[in-house]
């Protein structure tokens, strides 16, 4: 039996997405998340680090040393990658379902 998976909050998902490209520090994560959302998400530092703390505690990301010694860099762990893939798979399925329904809607000729 498949285990039920609770979806990640939007902010946590954005952080994992930002870290999927390369390890980053807090501000880079913030900028990347804003860019990925086409400017729709604006993250305040407090919320960012609360989400980072939660992801660290869950073992989805980990701290590493980076180029800039003043900052802490974060990268996805194996568990983090698995979780991100599971989330993306879920969204992929949802998109497929939505497209099928759209096709059905066009076939029967009325809005569902």
């Amino acid at each position, binding site marked *: 039996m498949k285990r039920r998976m609770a979806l990640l909050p939007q902010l946590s998902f954005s952080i994992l997405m930002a870290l999927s490209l390369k390890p980053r520090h807090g501000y880079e994560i913030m900028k990347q998340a804003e860019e990925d959302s086409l400017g729709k998400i604006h993250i305040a530092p*407090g919320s960012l680090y609360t989400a980072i703390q939660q992801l660290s505690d869950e073992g989805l990301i980990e701290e590493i040393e980076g180029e800039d010694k003043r900052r802490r860099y974060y990268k996805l762990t194996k568990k983090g990658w698995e979780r991100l893939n599971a989330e993306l798979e879920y969204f992929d399925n949802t998109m497929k379902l939505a497209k099928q329904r759209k096709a059905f809607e066009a076939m029967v000729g009325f809005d569902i």
Partner: protein
Amino acid sequence: MKNIRSRFPVYTTLLHLYPKPYRERYEDEILQTTADLLDDTTNTVDKFATWSRIAIDLPANMCRQQLRYVGGIMINETPNYLKRNSLVSGLLLLPFILAIVANGLSKVITGQGLYHSWLWRLPALCIWVLYLPALALGLALATYFTYTVRDTGKVCRPWLQRAIDLKHVWSLAVPAAIAFGILFLVGFHDSAQCWVQNPAHAVTHLHQAWQCTTNTQSFQAFTRF
């Protein structure tokens, strides 16, 4: 990092509202990110928008962190008997709260309270107004003293530190304070009228309110006692 702290003295001070472990771990980074964020903004409007976002985010986030911190302490550090007895104390107060709410709802729905129902007659009245709150207070106080004098091994500190350790005993303090409040109001219900009926008048006419209090039966019984 010292430069950034002096750059945002107010914000640095406000960050002290976060729980200590979180602050120790993320304070420097939060300040650094805030500095980066502000360095990237070019005009005053953007700077204002950034600070507004931070100002809105801070209280909500701080409350979330404090709850998480207290919750973590409650789950991991607070002894089980303390948690269990806090819960039982709270449950013992539930009939009082439900009766008051039911009375309020009855007033709203039917236009009259439950003062003529069995709930407001002896012995039911005595149970939810007196015995259960007294039991809740007794249980909370007994647990508090047990926690203060007993060394459970998990939280090993001098008894005085344990006695004022609100991080662990807040869950007992809340039902104890409510139970004490209920019993106080019951015991001094006629004295309380002098203050509660018209609080503004009582505050502006302190002498009159105090005279009214001293003339009540409960107060005289208390001073005789």
